[in-house]
């Protein structure tokens, strides 16, 4: 143990903690800006300064470790003024356009200026601005960038890609894709994790709210479907604790907004499982194109097409759940309700930025993709008092039912578990007794499980974040992969932590929890597992409306009709930048 004094009070801590970590443990808050646990601990912004006795200079708390006998002062006059000065200098090269910024009131920099009581404003030369919104998915505005480097580390270390980096030096320094190119001209997967860690509005997900308003005004038949992860995070935008399931209120709000039908993508998830489990069993029996890899995640599909084009035959050909549901809405649903396909607008509420790009693939039936945050903004725009809403249920005709298996699609391990429930049934003709496959749950980067199904040994892996994906993909390339079936989600923790979800920043967490952003995010997964547990139907193949869809329309999984509507193909993308 190490004995130190903080603000004249004695404490002892285990070895190896930074000053910041030690202070957090005893509920002493130190302001931070560039710091992001496990990503950036450079001390660049110099906002976390503290005074250490007998030290000539002030010390950055985020990257200096405590030592025996250390005496730290966190709130002296000099320290408070030094932090404030650091921040004032940072914002001297900032556009200060808070009023028309999409991160307004959801900005770590803005919150900090209030917290540190910034009063001075320096005027001087500013870095030349680049605004890149050409991709239509991600927007980069260098005039709001504070050069913390979080996005760079996220893309390089966690996702293993490295689209972004610092360029130039001095006042000309910017964070950009190579040669300040647009996201659309570099092999970006649009996972949007860079926007999740950006403390300002420099990197954001482009909004499409107006497209929806236009569709509603034109009197189209607008059908909305919400992804499983939305219910577990939307509440945070209305001050509910992380991990609150607000499904009932969300449905109620969507009905008030004026959608003709409010459906759950969970139906599409159940449909995906029917197709995907069948596909897996077929490949497994023939020992063809194994391991099979899930295809629900568009960030992952972009990654595979750009970086592992030689392994595209391993991907399931299933479209993602909302694309499947979109296809069914514009065929089966349209026919039964006698509505012209062209008069239907399908809107997906997604926790994801890459889904906005996915809808532009050539075989799509989804017209508009909005994120969780956009839905929250829409609810506020319509003046709906979310907290006072009565719970309502999804529309229950044709594609309204869903199983617990569909619900857990929103978290890492969920797609695999849902697929295993149905694959087990298909191979054994009986339900898996325990229902849950606990060993594919949890927040570890790579999870593996081995199952004995009717004498068949099935080895599965579940990975999230693309750097972990590249590890299992390299094994396939080298011929050393021991897996039969792999689930990949591009975002750390899966869809619950997608770029469309509300940001969880350390500033929103209790002091003691500030270093546990991922742990707190995983509470959203618990909300989904809890809902699954409460469901009467927990396997996709037991969803009565799925059975009906097959008997009345699609015939059987992998039928020619199912292939036409529910499956897709992938193609190599040239990732060269010139």
């Amino acid at each position: 143990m190490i004995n130190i004094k903080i603000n004249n009070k004695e404490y002892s801590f285990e070895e190896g903690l930074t000053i910041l970590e030690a202070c957090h443990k005893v509920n002493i808050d130190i302001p931070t800006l560039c710091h992001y646990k496990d990503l950036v601990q450079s001390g660049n912004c110099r906002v976390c300064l503290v005074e250490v006795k007998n030290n000539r200079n002030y010390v950055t708390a985020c990257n200096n470790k405590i030592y025996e006998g250390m005496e730290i002062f966190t709130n002296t006059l000099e320290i408070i003024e030094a932090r404030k000065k650091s921040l004032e200098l940072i914002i001297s090269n900032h556009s200060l356009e808070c009023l028309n910024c999409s991160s307004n009131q959801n900005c770590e920099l803005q919150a900090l200026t209030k917290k540190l009581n910034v009063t001075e404003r320096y005027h001087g030369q500013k870095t030349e601005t680049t605004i890149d919104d050409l991709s239509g998915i991600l927007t980069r505005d260098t005039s709001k960038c504070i050069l913390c480097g979080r996005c760079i580390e996220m893309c390089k270390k966690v996702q293993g890609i490295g689209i972004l980096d610092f360029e130039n030096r001095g006042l000309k320094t910017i964070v950009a894709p190579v040669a300040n190119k647009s996201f659309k001209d570099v092999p970006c997967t649009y996972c949007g994790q860079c926007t999740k860690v950006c403390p300002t509005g420099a990197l954001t997900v482009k909004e499409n709210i107006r497209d929806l308003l236009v569709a509603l005004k034109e009197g189209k038949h607008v059908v909305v479907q919400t992804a499983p992860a939305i219910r577990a995070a939307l509440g945070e935008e209305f001050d509910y604790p992380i991990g609150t399931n607000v499904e009932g209120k969300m449905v109620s709000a969507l009905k008030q907004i004026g959608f003709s039908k409010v459906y759950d993508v969970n139906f599409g998830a159940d449909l995906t499982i029917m197709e995907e489990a069948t596909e897996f069993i077929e490949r497994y029996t023939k020992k063809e194109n194994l391991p099979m890899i899930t295809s629900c995640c568009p960030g992952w599909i972009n990654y595979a097409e750009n970086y592992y084009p030689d392994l595209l035959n391993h991907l399931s050909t299933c479209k993602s759940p909302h694309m499947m549901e979109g296809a069914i809405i514009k065929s089966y649903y349209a026919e039964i309700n006698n509505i012209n396909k062209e008069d239907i607008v399908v809107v997906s509420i997604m926790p994801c930025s890459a889904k906005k790009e996915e809808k532009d693939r050539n075989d799509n039936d989804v017209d508009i993709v909005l994120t969780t945050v956009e839905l929250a903004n829409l609810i506020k725009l319509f003046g709906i008092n979310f907290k006072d809403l009565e719970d309502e249920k999804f529309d229950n005709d044709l594609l309204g039912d869903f199983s617990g298996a569909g619900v857990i699609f929103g978290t890492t391990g969920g797609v695999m578990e849902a697929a295993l429930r149905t694959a087990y049934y298909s191979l054994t003709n009986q339900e898996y007794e325990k229902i849950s496959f606990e060993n594919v749950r949890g927040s570890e980067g790579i999870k593996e499980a081995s199952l004995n199904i009717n004498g068949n040994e099935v080895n599965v892996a579940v990975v999230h974040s693309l750097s972990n994906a590249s590890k299992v993909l390299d094994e396939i390339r080298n011929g050393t992969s021991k897996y039969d079936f792999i689930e990949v989600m591009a975002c750390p923790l899966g869809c619950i932590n997608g770029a469309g979800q509300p940001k969880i920043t350390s500033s929103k967490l209790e002091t003691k929890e500030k270093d546990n952003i991922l742990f707190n995010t995983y509470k959203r997964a618990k909300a989904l597992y809890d809902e699954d547990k409460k469901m009467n139907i927990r396997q996709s193949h037991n969803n009565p409306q799925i059975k009906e869809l097959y008997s009345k329309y699609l015939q059987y999984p992998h039928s020619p009709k199912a292939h036409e509507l529910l499956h897709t193909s992938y193609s190599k993308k040239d990732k060269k930048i010139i």
Partner: protein
Amino acid sequence: MISSKSKEEIYNIIEKRKNMETPLMMILSDIQNKFGYIDLEVQQIVAEALNIPVSEIYGVVTFYSYFSLKPKGKYVISTCFGTACYVKGTQGIIDEFCNKLKIKPGETTEDGLFSIDILRCVGACSLAPVVTVNGKIYPHVKIADVDKIIKEYKDKEVLMNENS
């Protein structure tokens, strides 16, 4: 497009250096020395060979003024921007070079003859303000000297062309 011969030379440089602890700086220096510049195409080759993102290489190339993205002129006019030279009027001399050659610092004239570079300090403050052209030192330069310096190299070119 880069020629296959140049490509081979780049691969040789990478091969020679790639097992060093931090090979990137050495590889880029060698390429800069050999070809005089490191454009995006070359950066892409190095990125693939070392398996690091091209954005990172671009970051290094644009951080160090030693590296250049574009070919430099045959005669590189380097003006010292150190404190002593600055006080003695470097700015006016740079402006004059820019005016006469119709380029900005860091750029190259259309005929490929001249580039203007800004140096931080040559280390010859007693000679301030200092200009060097391909290593040749011009001490105590006045604005009126700029024309003479440019003429010296233009004349040299004419002479060389006549001789050949």
